[in-house]
């Protein structure tokens, strides 16, 4: 299209050249062709994304004598109210969303036989129900409100460490050597949320204050965590059933993506100095992943960060005791030989003379001769040796933490 024709199209001789140029940009052939392509693209893409391709080997819907309409009704399991906007899948294929006050969706011409109905809605646990058509022409699918509630705006679970806090309805009195039922969290969830927010703020969001500045953490490390709290009025953890406590029975079904679960109980009475009292903190698992959790009181920060060192960051104890020792590659905080410790410290340009054998018992432990065939680098007070309020993660521990944070989705799954 010539410049003359453009002027003719615009038709107004008083138009400034700048305005004409702008209109030219709007109305030349290419612009319109581009918009046409966009519109056609939208036309093609939308139906394809909304309507799944069927597996021809398994006919699901289609008008025939052996088919019936199936009505799906999605309800809140607590209130019984219908839920609109729930996504419904028949046999794994998307069918549509529920609408109306009764949360209804009618699926036309469903073939006879057994079918699965999967329902998803934000803010609720997903549910799958099996139905047989035509014996069942209506299926009520109850949805339970979400039990695992993010404390903020969560990122993709594959890209972050997903930490779920679980309230305990038990605590312990070491003086009386007695497990005590408590309703501090169960009667008021606000208490639990406040403790969780406090723990997150003081331990995870300010992790850089407890780690080595020399090594440092990834920029915006705070955004590499997703935090959630578990909320089910009928289900609580028991922090004092076994060393690390027990999680609610359905916990892993409810939150399989959990990298680390943390049982929080309100208070530990007295001072734990070993058996016969129950441990105040205990971790099951070394590093984030399957079945990794620990327990800790809401009130003892140093103990929390020590147990988090095990379960969240995969760090090894650096005190000498009856613990589990291994060289936790890569970037370990404990080595199986002095030479490897020295090589690591040299490679990282640290002070290699600091490498020393693990031989110092844990604080408060009965004095005894202890020596392990493992070596450590981090200076005392080291959180993994003596958890107290002034202890820190040294260079080695910080480097391991950094490795974990920089490689959360290790296989790009």
């Amino acid at each position, binding site marked *: 299209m010539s410049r003359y024709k453009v002027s003719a199209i615009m038709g107004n001789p008083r138009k400034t050249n700048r305005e004409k140029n702008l209109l030219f940009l709007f109305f030349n052939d290419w612009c319109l062709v581009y918009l046409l392509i966009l519109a056609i693209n939208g036309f093609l893409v939308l139906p394809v994304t909304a*309507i799944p391709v069927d597996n021809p080997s398994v006919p699901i819907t289609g008008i025939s004598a052996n088919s019936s309409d199936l009505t799906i009704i999605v309800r809140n399991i607590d209130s019984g109210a219908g839920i609109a906007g729930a996504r419904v899948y028949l046999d794994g294929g998307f069918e549509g969303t529920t609408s109306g006050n009764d949360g209804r969706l009618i699926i036309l011409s469903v073939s006879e036989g057994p079918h699965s109905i999967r329902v998803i809605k934000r803010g609720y646990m997903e549910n799958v129900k099996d139905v047989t058509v035509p014996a069942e022409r209506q299926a009520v699918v109850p949805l339970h409100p979400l039990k695992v509630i993010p404390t903020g705006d969560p990122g993709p679970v594959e890209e972050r460490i997903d930490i779920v806090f679980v309230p305990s309805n038990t605590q312990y009195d070491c003086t009386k050597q007695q497990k005590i039922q408590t309703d501090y969290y169960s009667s008021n969830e606000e208490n639990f949320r406040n403790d969780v927010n406090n723990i997150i703020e003081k331990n995870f969001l300010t992790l850089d204050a407890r780690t080595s500045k020399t090594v440092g953490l990834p920029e915006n490390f705070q955004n590499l965590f997703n935090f959630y709290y578990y909320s089910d009025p009928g289900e609580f953890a028991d922090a004092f059933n076994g060393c690390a406590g027990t999680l609610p029975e359905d916990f892993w079904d409810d939150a399989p993506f959990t990298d680390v679960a943390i049982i929080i109980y309100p208070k530990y009475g007295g001072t734990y100095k070993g058996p016969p009292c129950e441990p105040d903190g205990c971790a099951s698992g070394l590093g984030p992943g399957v079945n990794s959790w620990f327990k800790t009181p809401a009130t003892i920060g140093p103990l929390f960060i020590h147990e988090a060192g095990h379960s969240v960051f995969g760090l090894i104890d650096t005190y000498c005791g009856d613990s589990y020792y291994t060289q936790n590659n890569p970037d370990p905080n404990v080595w199986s030989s002095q030479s490897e410790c020295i090589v690591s410290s040299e490679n990282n340009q640290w002070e290699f003379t600091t490498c020393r054998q693990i031989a110092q018992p844990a604080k408060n432990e009965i004095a005894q001769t202890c020596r392990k065939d493992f070596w450590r680098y981090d200076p005392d007070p080291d959180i993994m040796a003596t958890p107290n309020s002034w202890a820190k993660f040294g260079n080695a521990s910080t480097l391991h933490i950094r490795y974990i944070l920089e490689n959360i989705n290790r296989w790009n799954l």
Partner: protein
Amino acid sequence: MRYVAVFGVIILIILLVMGSVTTDTDEDYTKIVEVILGIHKVGVAEESVEVRYGHPPNLGHQCGNFTATVRAINGTSLFTFDVWDPRYQFDEYGIRSVLERHEQMEDPDLEKVYGDMGETVDIDLPLLIPYNRDIQTIDLVDKCSGNLLISVNVSPALDRFQNRFPRDPDMMAGTQCTLPVTAPVSGKQSPIPIAVCVLAVIVVIILFHRVRRE
């Protein structure tokens, strides 16, 4: 005419934006393979294998006594990761054996109590593995001895899932020898996004012709 054209383009852009925002963003077909193993005093046994919807935890960051290897049909390793032995837990002064309690249960009455509670194994070892269409077996190896403790065949669980969710995109991908067909639109799909796009196409064509004619 130009005002009509400008107005038309604005409407068109709005319609296109509407079309794009109505595109589904909640699609989630992520699946996990859940293998529950039972660690007995004398070995490891398969308790259950299930494929289900859900997201797995991040793997490959644990230290532990076991190594799990996820293998494809031809035996090649898809990925390998360490697994912590759940029989052991860390308290403030060292490691504790969860099985201590079991070992102390020499009292047959107590054994019966635990048996009545459904406790048939010493402890469960769950493995939550990201679904991969090539998964065939999961091997668990004792790191210290190098011995294969168990090899779990996940094919039956995959078949059960495929039977239950045959229209799941990943399940349909397994039947690529047959040409897929588009499902009939049975009126259940909201017609608004499609109508918006059709309208957008019509508006563009009309505008195009009117502008060219003038």
